[in-house]
């Protein structure tokens, strides 16, 4: 490892960081536009062309506002909670490969901050760290409604993380059907194993054999990111605001930032696990080399934004679940469903590899 390698790692880190900030600014605006359109409104249209600078304006306003610290808060934890929200949100994206490896300065560089060989575990670990921010923000505010929001967040995160993990296990198990015959937890490897086609024309994406796991994963990530219809954590009508009631200014903006980064990275992870990641036609040889190198990034963004759009769409369409409905769906539908699907797909993979027991 020489100086060029170190610089390239630094470049990847900075690029990922910048990407996440830019997409957050765009996503907040896009969500407001999409939801407005679905509700027959115009949405933000004053700042910049099509109102695209609205988020920048809002962000600047929050940045300059006073961050009020109420007198009853538990100071240390109260101040730390917004950072606990943002740090895992940024870290979770670091294992997602956002493009095919490219050739620079005579070496192959993967477009990914870190290729952990236990990448999926890292994702699960980081998404369970995110719950600390909400719980501690709610508790340290020293106020009833934020506390209720925090309690709801804990119960919700624990319930839906199990379903999310089980859906991931199905994908890992399926990945054993290609490659060297063992499953893999590395995201880069999972993407490579989705290259190629079924029957010559259907892309070899995990969503085709693992459609049930995809549906469960999608519901679970909406719940994990505390988005509508699972946003009981910040139910305005019931809890004044939710876990962030006592936060204002920059600290509130950090919770907001974390939520939108999580939506984007969870969508990118879903696209990586089920929609083939950066796989897609690159027409190398026909197009100039630099376009072929950039196209995989474009394909990943297209797939990610398809899922981000589903997030917005659901938010504009479905009413919030009641607390008991949330628990029913998590424990009585998703987890047994995911377990049953795991058994079914294990049986199929077993038959494919070892043949039928009576055959």
């Amino acid at each position, binding site marked *: 490892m020489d100086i060029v390698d170190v610089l390239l790692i630094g470049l990847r880190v900075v690029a990922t960081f910048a990407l996440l900030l830019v997409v957050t600014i765009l996503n907040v605006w896009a969500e407001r536009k999409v939801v407005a359109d679905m509700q027959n409104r115009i949405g933000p249209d004053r700042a910049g062309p099509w109102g695209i600078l609205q988020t920048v304006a809002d962000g600047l306003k929050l940045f300059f506002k006073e961050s009020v610290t109420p007198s*009853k*808060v*538990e100071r240390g*934890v109260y101040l730390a909670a917004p950072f606990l929200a943002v740090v895992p949100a940024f870290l979770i994206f670091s294992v997602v490969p956002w493009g095919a490896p490219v050739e620079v300065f005579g070496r192959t560089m993967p477009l990914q901050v870190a290729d*952990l*060989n*236990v990448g999926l*575990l*890292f994702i*699960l*670990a980081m998404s*369970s*760290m995110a*719950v*600390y921010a909400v*719980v*501690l923000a*709610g*508790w*340290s505010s*020293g106020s009833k409604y934020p*506390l209720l929001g*925090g*309690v709801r967040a*804990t*119960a919700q*995160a*624990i319930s839906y*993380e199990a379903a999310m993990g089980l859906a991931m296990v199905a994908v890992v198990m399926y990945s054993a059907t290609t490659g060297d015959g*063992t*499953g893999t*937890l590395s995201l880069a490897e999972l993407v490579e194993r989705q290259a190629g086609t079924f029957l010559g024309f259907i892309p070899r994406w995990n969503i085709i054999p693992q459609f049930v796991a995809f549906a469960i994963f999608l519901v679970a990530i909406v719940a994990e990111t505390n988005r509508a219809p699972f946003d009981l954590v910040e139910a305005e009508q019931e809890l004044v605001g939710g876990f962030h009631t006592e936060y204002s200014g920059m600290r509130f903006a950090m919770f907001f930032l974390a939520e939108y980064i999580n939506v984007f990275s969870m969508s990118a992870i879903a696209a990586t696990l089920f929609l083939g990641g950066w796989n897609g036609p690159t027409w190398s040889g026909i197009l100039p080399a630099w376009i072929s190198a950039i196209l995989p990034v474009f394909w990943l963004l297209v797939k990610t934004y398809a899922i981000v759009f589903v997030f917005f769409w659901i938010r504009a369409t479905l009413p919030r679940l009641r607390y008991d409905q949330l628990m029913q769906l998590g424990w009585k539908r998703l987890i047994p469903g995911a377990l049953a699907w795991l058994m079914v797909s294990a049986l199929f993979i077993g038959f494919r590899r070892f043949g039928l027991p009576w055959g």
Partner: protein
Amino acid sequence: MSFSDWISQPVNWVFLGLALAVLAAGFRVVTSQNVVHAALFLVATLAGVAGLFVLLSAEFVAWVLVLVYIGAVVVLFLFGIMITRAPTGQDVGLDNRRARPVAAVVSLGLFGVLSWTSVRAFQDTAVAGVGERTPTDILGEALLGRFVFPFEVVGFVLLAALIGGITLARRDLTPKEEEERGAV
């Protein structure tokens, strides 16, 4: 190996720093007067232990520790605290000063037994494979091959503990109490 040799290797500085941080955080877990702070110091302790596993190149174990203990067990602790004793602030009764000598004897005794057995068992054997990643498939094969019996026994013990916990915590109501509850 003398101490000056040992300390001259940078990896041991990291070890020393992590080990001291784990010890300090662990001490604060039992002395903290605020139950939420105690839970947070427990998180710091577990994170330090995960760091020690990373030093041993056991990435898988480290992340499983973060996922299971920090991500689930302590979150459940916090959940329990939130729905039972939510208000912020100190709880003086939490740090029982009279029990300190007994606790010190028990914990030092446990530390002595564990360190004595592990030092006796491994002596000067170097741990193989440190510095290279442990492939997860080898770990899986070991767990479901050579160690499958202990693995299943541990699972069975945990199940028994779970059922025991439920039986202890959920007392069946006497017919009279049930009647009273029905009346309300």
